[in-house]
């Protein structure tokens, strides 16, 4: 019953002579929150960019909803939030959303809805540059939600947020998933792992695990994901 929103086969990306992604195979399913975990520099962002279609891939297949990543018809169906908030600092929150709504061809009524979803209704008329870092990334998230995308790709969306807000955001990720979207969230903080339905563990351009948090703990005989990660790294055969 679970549909694969994303199917990746033998994905390789070489950037500037370095093999950043070294042959990845995985799926991201609709209706689930999939966590992409790994230390910084392990290739998480490059992987996410490949799914969104803005990263030129060297080899392999990346299919989103059965179409090759980057296909023109996918552009309104994927919501992508980059690590640094990609919004205009000199516009207000509402002006930013209204602009992107017009580009996406989404009715203006979505603007207030999406501002509400990220809990910024009180700041709607504030200029983005004057907001805190956490608020700015929520503006960026709100833009990604405008077109009600069926695939949400979120690159470290909870960095620098206060714990209460972090919990709220994770709750909304699960709400999007329950409504049928596929949600892929990256993080370098292992303690966020338990909030995910499924985990992809990454290290040096390879996937070292693809399991549920419980399954991962069982398989490695550990109590938390941090230790599971260490166990997997130690077991890894050096290539």
């Amino acid at each position: 019953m679970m549909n694969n929103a994303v199917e990746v086969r033998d994905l390789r990306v070489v950037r500037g002579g370095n093999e950043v992604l070294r042959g990845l195979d995985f799926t991201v399913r609709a209706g689930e929150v999939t966590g992409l975990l790994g230390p910084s520099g392990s290739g998480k962002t490059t992987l996410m960019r490949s799914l969104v279609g803005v990263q030129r891939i060297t080899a392999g297949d990346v299919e989103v909803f059965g179409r090759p990543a980057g296909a023109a018809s996918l552009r309104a169906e994927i919501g992508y939030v980059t690590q640094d908030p990609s919004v205009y600092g000199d516009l207000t929150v509402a002006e930013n959303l209204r602009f992107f709504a017009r580009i996406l061809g989404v009715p203006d009524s979505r603007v207030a809805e999406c501002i509400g979803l990220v809990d910024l209704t009180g700041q709607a008329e504030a200029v983005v540059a004057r907001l805190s870092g956490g608020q700015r990334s929520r503006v960026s998230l709100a833009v990604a939600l405008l077109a009600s995308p069926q695939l949400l790709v979120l690159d470290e969306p909870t960095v620098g947020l206060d714990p209460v807000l972090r919990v709220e955001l994770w709750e909304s990720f699960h709400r999007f998933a329950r409504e049928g979207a596929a949600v892929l969230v990256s993080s370098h903080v292992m303690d966020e792992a338990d909030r995910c339905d499924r985990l992809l563990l990454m290290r040096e351009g390879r996937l070292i695990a693809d399991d549920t948090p419980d399954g991962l703990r069982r398989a490695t005989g550990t109590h938390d994901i941090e230790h599971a990660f260490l166990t997997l790294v130690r077991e890894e055969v050096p290539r």
Partner: protein
Amino acid sequence: MSTTTATVAVTTRVLTQVRRDHRTVAMLLVMPCVVMTLLWWMFEDLPGDGFDRLGPALLALIPFIVMFLVTSVTTLRERTSGTLERLLAMPMGKVDFLFGYAIAFGLFAAAQSALAVALCVWLLDLTIVGNVWMLLVVAVVDAILGTALGLFVSAFARTEFQAVQFMPVVVIPQILLCGLFVPREALPRVLEVISDVLPLSYGVDAMQTVAASHDTGEVWLDLAVVAAYVVAGLALGALTLRRQTP
């Protein structure tokens, strides 16, 4: 989403951004008037028609230089902040982006030039034989030329500091060779040929023709050359907007 909606959305957004920056707006509108007044004052006590000779060329240069700088810095900001990548990952045509910017800065240049032209014609007694409205048309086309070239070079700069460094490369040679200092036909042959392929030469020619004669045919011809460079600049600019990066 239709193409015009997206173009209008980009134009509106750029205008809102510029409007919010009061200091930039003041600089954009007041600076050309100050420069023109300074030029007028320099020749005030001198015999001859220095202001009439140089004034029109300066009216062509200012919108070009200002819009070149403003555009290369703003589009570079758009590239480095990730908003350009976000837009290109959305269903937006590259042409919408380029036209949106060109229209926004064209409108701004119109306001800027209207003030400068009004000041020169009514307060500083600049002699204009041709149609005063044509001065505005030429100024706007020159401004759009600056925007088109600015969009293009912003692709080759990584920082705003680098973007500003393109001014000596792209703008200053054009100022030197446009006929402002030495009439173009009096330049050494090689420089004259170079001057013939630089777009700003035609912008300045058009402005000087409006100031000195009723020959609108000649003006439109020069403007057509500038417009061709605008189209080429925007086309090259479109090539630098990549939906996928390595």
